[in-house]
């Protein structure tokens, strides 16, 4: 898997997101900040949807690096129990079926599926959905 950035995903199959744990307070954040205040920590693969919306128009480029052809996508905040709430795409689900509290699992997707060597970005899908 070609990740969009170093240090976002573990090298396992399937991968996990890498968060940062504050050495002093134990607070977990995502992504892991640079510097020595936070220790990298793999985050849980499953969680529940905390909130969401749909990006209905193509964001400005720069910074958006997605394909020119735009189709709306859902983006949500996913609560990983006991860790933190991470922001990521919500995929493989109809917008009308999205509900706060639904169970989700990490399922990275390509930023541009038609690219020659697509980069993978953080995303979650309903548990049990075939990607």
């Amino acid at each position, binding site marked *: 898997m070609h990740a969009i950035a170093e240090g976002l995903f573990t090298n396992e199959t399937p991968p996990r997101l890498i968060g940062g744990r504050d050495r002093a307070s134990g607070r977990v954040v*995502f992504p892991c900040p640079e510097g020595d205040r936070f220790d990298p920590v793999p985050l849980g693969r499953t969680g529940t949807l905390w909130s969401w*919306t749909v990006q209905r128009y193509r964001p400005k480029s720069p910074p958006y690096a997605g394909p020119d052809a735009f189709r709306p996508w859902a983006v949500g905040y996913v609560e990983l129990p006991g860790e933190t709430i991470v922001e990521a795409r919500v995929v493989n689900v109809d917008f009308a079926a999205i509900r706060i509290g639904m169970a989700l699992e990490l399922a990275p997707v390509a930023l541009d599926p038609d690219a020659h060597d697509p980069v993978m970005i953080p995303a979650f899908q309903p548990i049990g959905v075939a990607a």
Partner: protein
Amino acid sequence: MSGDVCIVGVGIHRFGRTDGVSGLEQGVFAVNQALGDAGIDWQQIQFAYGSSDAAGNPDTMVERLGLTGVQFINVRNGCAAGGSALFSAQMAIKSGEYDIGLAVGFDKHPRGAFDAKPAEYGLPEWYGDVGQMVTTQFFGAKITRYMHEHGITPTTLGRVAEKAYRNGAHAPHAWRREPVSLETIMDAPLVSDPYTKFMFCSPAEGGVALILASEKKARELGKPLIRLKAATMRTRPPGSFEVFAPSIDLDPADGRPRGTATRIASADAFRMAGIGPKDIAVAQLQDTEAGAELMHMAENGFCADGAQEQWLAEGRTEVGGALPVNTDGGCLACGEPIGASGLRQVYENVVQLRGDGGGRQVPGNPKTAYTHVYGAPGVSAVTILER
């Protein structure tokens, strides 16, 4: 200094789009109007604080107003820029160092959503690459959670926008001056669910100037005393949910609401003024999107979380209601020129306290007025005026 800081002159350049007039020129227009309103000339201004986010350095306006050597400090503070300029100006008078000065704000933004770069917010480049550096996404996700927790319906979002355009029709400085029906608002295309395009404000242009004076100076000028009883500016506490957040902390274990910069700025302002939310006769609350007005009603202490559903259905925040909110249509009708937006709210409150609101005048001779701005990355500014 004894007594209160008073607002003795106000001026505004119409918000919206004014092709061919720079943001700075709109600021100069507002200053000249405020000087005329106060009955003084530029030579009497002892100091100035100016805010602009995207339209150049405010202090360059001395070229247009007069090279008097006046102290002029530029302020950039995100959406709280105008509030920060006003806060600083009143401190200069409270200190006893000066008795009359200026707070001015203006801006002129390109069309479309605000441009934000990850590095300016301490974020990695990938966050922008994937398309999450978008303010409207945050607004959509924030209100979706709030509606889920507190039983707010989309119709109530629509009612906020409907009120904004109805009020804006009566405000000469507003941008959107045509009423829009609730049906049109609800049926319009979605931008970021659950918000339709009428539920978001747009970046805009405009200028506002306020002349502040010591109470002694205000009496000399023979102006009605509009007293600035409190002006606060605060940053976010731990655990708040802010724009451009790749992660947010888990909900507080004790079930209490998340802390916000608004809650702190508001509580401090009420304490300084020695009054409470029930004493306020008119309020201007940050409404960059319809749900912001609802959340800010609660965060500023005017109602309980969830009570907005009933408040809006009963028209309690209408101009003739128990607590009129955003009497000039707020950001939804006026647009948001960042440097000027917070000062517009104070301008509108001075108009209301003087009884000059025309078709949008709050009845019953209001004596107290409240303003609130909020912005990235978790800043808020509040003022309380009394007449």
